[in-house]
């Protein structure tokens, strides 16, 4: 029988993988994929709690908004990565290093 714990374990694993991806990837697009994992791990939590724990729909409603926000955020982030590529001909983050000090 699959219960709340299983969902929480999956979401915790996804969250950790997302953080790992963000920290280790050089390519900006891969980092954004890590961000998506983080957001979706929270979505799994919200829906699972709504289904098994709290008995109300607030969590599912929240998850729908998160999906919308994630789309908006990625749209803006990809536009910025595209500009990076136009200006430097690379999607690699460690080559964006003129601001320091």
């Amino acid at each position: 029988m699959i219960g709340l714990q299983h969902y929480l374990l999956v979401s915790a694993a996804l969250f950790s993988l997302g953080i790992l991806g963000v920290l280790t990837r050089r390519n900006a697009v891969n980092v954004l994929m890590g961000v998506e994992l983080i957001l979706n791990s929270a979505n799994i939590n919200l829906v699972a709690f709504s289904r098994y724990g709290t008995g109300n729909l607030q969590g599912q409603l929240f998850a729908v908004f998160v999906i919308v926000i994630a789309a908006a955020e990625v749209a803006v982030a990809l536009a910025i990565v595209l500009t990076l590529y136009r200006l430097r001909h690379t999607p690699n983050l460690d080559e964006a290093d003129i601001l320091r000090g």
Partner: protein
Amino acid sequence: MQEVAHSLSRFHPEVVLTAALLLVVLVDSSGVRFRNVVNQVLTVAALAAALVFSIRLTGSSGETWSGLLVVDPLGVFFKMLLVGASLLVALVFTFRNSRELQGLGQGEFYALLLAVTLSNLLLAASNDLAMLYLSLEMVSITSYVMVAYMKGDRMSNEASLKYVLFGAVSTGAMLYGLSLLYGLAGTTSLPGIRAFLAAGISDANLFAVYAIAFLVLAGFGFKTATVPFHFWCPDVYEGAPTPVTAFLSVAPKAAGFAIMTRFFFQGFSTQAGGPWGHVAAIDWPRVLMLVSVATMTVGNVAALTQTNMKRLLAYSSIAHAGYIMMGVVALSEDGARALQIYLLAYVFMNLGAFLVVTLIHNQDGTFDLRDYPGMYRRAPLLTLAMAVFLLSLMGIPPLIGFMGKFYVFAAIIEKGPSYGWYAVVGAVNAAIAAYYYARVLKTMIIDAGNETRPAFRIPAVDMAWVLFFAAANVVPLLFWGAIDGWTRQSLVLFAGR
């Protein structure tokens, strides 16, 4: 229906801003000849109208939109502060006096300014986790675009790239925390969470509450630029166009502190007829105290060696976030009031300092402190105004910045001897800060150099605004009784049902 009508009647500032935002986009895409002038007038008019509507909300209190948002005296104070700061930015930092923005489209700038202001208002009034997350992301996403405004500029692009990646991760971590909080408390409304936590929770869940607090602090820390989520701040402030930097250093930071206060006071504290106290589950003032100490120390120490004025002011703004946080840590009415007064003072001193930096960049094309010698000879009035802003940031007595520091330190000392070391650390930090502000002044006034460069030619309008900001750092002290009374009235948080 009645609920909607009731909510709408307390939603005028937001409605005006939304309408103006759509109009600005329409006018800009219509290709009318005077569209830039029309857009600036529209923006200023809308912000002024929103300010008037916010002032008219004074005294009202209650939940709106089925408890998603809340109108209360503290929220109304922040509405005025946030709209006022945007209005000043729209009036003062125009395309005319910014060399960086010249030649770029103007309509988008005003549309984005209105969008950030709108989302700031929603953030400061959020009473529900979903609304909190939505408005926080709306502030962030629109600010990413503002930072990237000079799209052919590598620094602006790099700044926004760092901002968006850092922001996405910290708000993502915050969202994970919020989802756990929803699972724990079974509701997304802040009053509901307070009721759940105040009833006491089992020991097994204590760890979860701490984890939630740390994850949520990631989001708030990012928005207010506090350690250890401040790394984006210097790079973003340096790379963004200066008008955007000035705006970001003031408005989203204030909104971040508004929601931090609301989240912790409303969700994690109790006030059963007496003084405020944190919920038994987590001693969050201790956690925030450590964050605040680290923030002011890191900000001030890193600022010591900066030579770029925008970076220096970025680290100074990190340090100020540490002082402002003292007001949240105090967890008392005096603390909340100190927070309000500090933010009010911060708007005037920081916008003033950034205005001077912009004007110097227009004349000389430099943000480097090493190009500042001889400034007093070339532009005496501007240098004196900068002295006022820097002394105010330092916290020297007859200026408004001193009042901010005075109130936060008083609120902390009131808490008793166990908070004494915190006040001492704050005072030591203020002394460190005095060094680098004084170094800027010494460079501008005493150091010799740039003898061949011509005297400054500053348009009368810009000079008038510089003097306005300088006056705003002094004049309020003459009417301090009125300001004190005004902030005292706007202390009340809506307690919820």
